[in-house]
């Protein structure tokens, strides 16, 4: 093991060590688990940065720990590959994790499960790092499930709450539905390629017939749909907001949910050979982006609004990777991770100051009471709305430009529409929470969060403000794109975010969409020059549809969950107890009835025995003579 390998394996080692230490010996560490846990993650971050520069100025490299499964012709190693794509993800994940860990020390202070929380969180970081670094599909699948499990225990962290444990379970099960497809995809790759290593699979995939490539791509995408909460498996993410807010920031905004996008970028070779699968990715992304933004406009729970916003932004990323603009997708992934992590953490700060209140109708005018939180929140909001020069502007614009250049005008229009809605709902949130008149309960002592929480916010806000410049138009010459495009150059339908049209024209359109969204929110909630109630009444059906999340949960409950339960009861009560056991008991019954009848022959009457005997003898004799 040379020093490179050592550094690579130390990155996941520290979080794993933390997870085990706080998990098993949590009660001895108490509050130190928070500080030490953060330090562990920061060490991982530093090591990731080292690896980043090693790869940036050198080559990608593979290192193997040990042979995991070796069953005749099925061989899988525990090994990692670090390339440009994974180092970007690594730095992003460990960086945001560090900030979230530090923030959590303040946020989770005095919680009974403090050590347990950091154990879970470290375990998640470990799994996420391994997911990124895995160099074969099985290992990817393993940590794909592992992050899902971490998400399960973290959503249900406050397990005494029924809603929280329900949400955790729902997340795990819905994810498993996606993983079902993913697992089949992995198997399909193996039976056709005889290997699961990325490099061998990607170099040989074009030898397969197109329908197989498409099937594989779609099955892998099923996993991505589950993990990244795309339509129709998006239902778990809004519920996942039952978990602690830093968890929402880290797992359900910045890292885990983006694993789907990472997966497609990682498998860009497969997707590039299958235009139809890529189209499905594009369409699903478009649908999710639109409906999530549509739903977000009428929700009142601030965390849920941000959650729907995450769905919608993930939709953007999927649209990007769907048209082959992988670099733009990854760029938006990173910038979204920063500003969405920021938004969640600020929302957590608001919650912290409001003693856990989430309903924006009970807020208002908080700006004066928590200035740091408010300003950082607004920075995040501006980034999300795509207002220049914040990071969201550059990353979202690259996606929209790629859509336009590819000729997907329909999805470009959807993208612009979503941009408008995004700006509207996030500023609806900002105006309602931080400005206007206060609806806060008079007894509530609203306060700004401690420094351990606000410092990470400020750091993130700075990044959200300036990060975009590394991906400035004209895109292909910017730092970010020229760095990562080398990884994608070998895919077939690769469309770097080129601009055939003057980029500033397209950008102007998106900026207008963003600003008009903000203005609409301003008109509605600050100036109040339009009567909202009247609008609600006029568009009652549309409003109800949005407010009730398109009734998707109810439809699933009605069409899948309940029939399945009823069917199971039927199987148990009817098939098992009645048919099979009935048959078994029926045979037993038949034997017992028959034998009780036959038993009567033995009546104890000597005479009848003798009679039978005589008849028998006579019958035998008769047979003898007649013959």
């Amino acid at each position, binding site marked *: 093991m040379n020093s490179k390998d050592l550094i690579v394996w130390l990155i996941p080692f520290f979080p794993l060590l933390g997870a085990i230490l706080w998990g098993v010996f949590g009660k001895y560490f108490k509050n130190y688990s928070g500080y030490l846990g953060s330090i562990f993650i920061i060490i991982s971050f530093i090591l990731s940065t080292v690896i980043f520069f090693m790869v940036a100025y050198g080559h990608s490299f593979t290192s193997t720990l040990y042979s995991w499964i070796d069953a005749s012709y099925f061989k899988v190693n525990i090994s990692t590959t670090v390339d440009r794509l994974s180092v970007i993800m690594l730095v992003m994940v460990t960086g945001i994790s560090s900030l979230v860990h530090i923030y959590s020390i303040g946020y989770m202070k005095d919680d009974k499960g403090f050590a347990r929380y950091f154990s879970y969180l470290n375990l998640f970081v470990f799994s996420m790092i391994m997911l990124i670094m895995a160099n074969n599909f099985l290992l990817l699948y393993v940590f794909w499930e592992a992050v899902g499990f971490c998400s399960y225990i973290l959503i249900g962290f406050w397990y005494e709450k029924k809603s929280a444990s329900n949400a955790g379970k729902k997340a795990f099960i819905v994810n498993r539905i996606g993983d079902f497809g993913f697992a089949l995809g992995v198997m399909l790759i193996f039976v056709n390629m005889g290997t699961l290593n990325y490099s061998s699979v990607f170099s040989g995939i074009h030898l397969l017939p197109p329908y197989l490539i498409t099937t594989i791509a779609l099955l892998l995408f099923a996993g991505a749909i589950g993990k990244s909460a795309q339509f129709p498996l998006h239902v778990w993410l809004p519920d996942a907001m039952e978990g602690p807010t830093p968890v929402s920031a880290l797992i359900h905004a910045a890292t885990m949910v983006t694993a789907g996008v990472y997966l497609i970028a990682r498998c860009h070779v497969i997707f590039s050979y299958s235009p139809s699968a890529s189209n499905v990715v594009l369409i699903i992304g478009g649908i999710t982006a639109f409906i999530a933004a549509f739903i977000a406009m009428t929700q009142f729970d601030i965390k849920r609004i941000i959650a729907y916003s995450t769905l919608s932004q993930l939709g953007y990323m999927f649209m990007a990777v769907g048209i082959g603009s992988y670099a733009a997708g990854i760029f938006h992934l990173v910038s979204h991770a920063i500003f969405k992590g920021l938004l969640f953490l600020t929302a957590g700060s608001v919650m912290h100051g409001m003693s856990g209140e989430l309903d924006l109708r009970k807020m208002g005018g908080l700006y004066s009471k928590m200035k740091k939180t408010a300003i950082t929140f607004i920075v995040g909001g501006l980034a999300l709305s795509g207002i220049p020069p914040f990071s969201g502007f550059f990353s979202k614009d690259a996606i929209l430009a790629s859509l336009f250049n590819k000729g997907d005008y329909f999805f470009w229009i959807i993208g612009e529409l979503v941009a408008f809605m995004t700006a509207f709902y996030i500023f609806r949130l900002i105006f309602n929470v931080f400005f206007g008149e206060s609806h806060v309960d008079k007894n509530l002592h609203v306060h700004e969060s401690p420094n351990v929480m606000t410092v990470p916010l400020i750091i993130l806000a700075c990044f959200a403000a300036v990060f975009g410049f590394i991906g400035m138009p004209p895109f292909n010459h910017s730092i970010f794109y020229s760095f990562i495009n080398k990884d994608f150059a070998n895919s077939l339908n690769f469309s770097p975010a080129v601009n055939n049209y003057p980029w500033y024209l397209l950008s102007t359109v998106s900026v207008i969409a963003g600003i008009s969204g903000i203005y609409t929110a301003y008109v509605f909630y600050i100036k109040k020059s339009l009567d909202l109630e009247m609008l609600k009444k006029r568009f009652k059906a549309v409003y109800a549809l949005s407010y009730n999340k398109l009734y998707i949960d109810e439809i699933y409950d009605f069409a899948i969950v309940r029939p399945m339960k009823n069917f199971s009861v039927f199987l148990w009560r009817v098939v098992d107890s009645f048919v099979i056991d009935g048959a078994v008991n029926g045979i037993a019954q038949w034997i017992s009835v028959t034998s009780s009848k036959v038993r009567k022959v*033995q009546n*104890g009457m*000597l*005479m009848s025995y003798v009679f039978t005997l005589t008849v028998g003898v006579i019958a035998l004799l008769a047979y003898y003579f007649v013959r």
Partner: protein
Amino acid sequence: MNINVNDYLIVATIIFCIGALGVLIRKNLITIFLSLELMFNAANLGFVAVSEYLNLMSGDIFVIFIMVVAAAEAAILLGIAIAFYREKGTIDIDKANELKM
């Protein structure tokens, strides 16, 4: 009138049937025993007749054996009959139905 072996056998059959009917029909244990003796002796008659006809000694030897066994049987059966009477106060065979399930 010449009596041949067939006639002996016919008589033996008739006596056997009478004995068998007696066993089947009568309820009294002693009567049944007597009918049983009739069946034995019908068989004995058959043995003797055929033995004479074939000029063999073995049939006669069988008869002697059977008579000895029958005597022993009679002793046992009478013993059973007395025990049965003491138990049930009757020697009606229909009361002996303890074997049924």
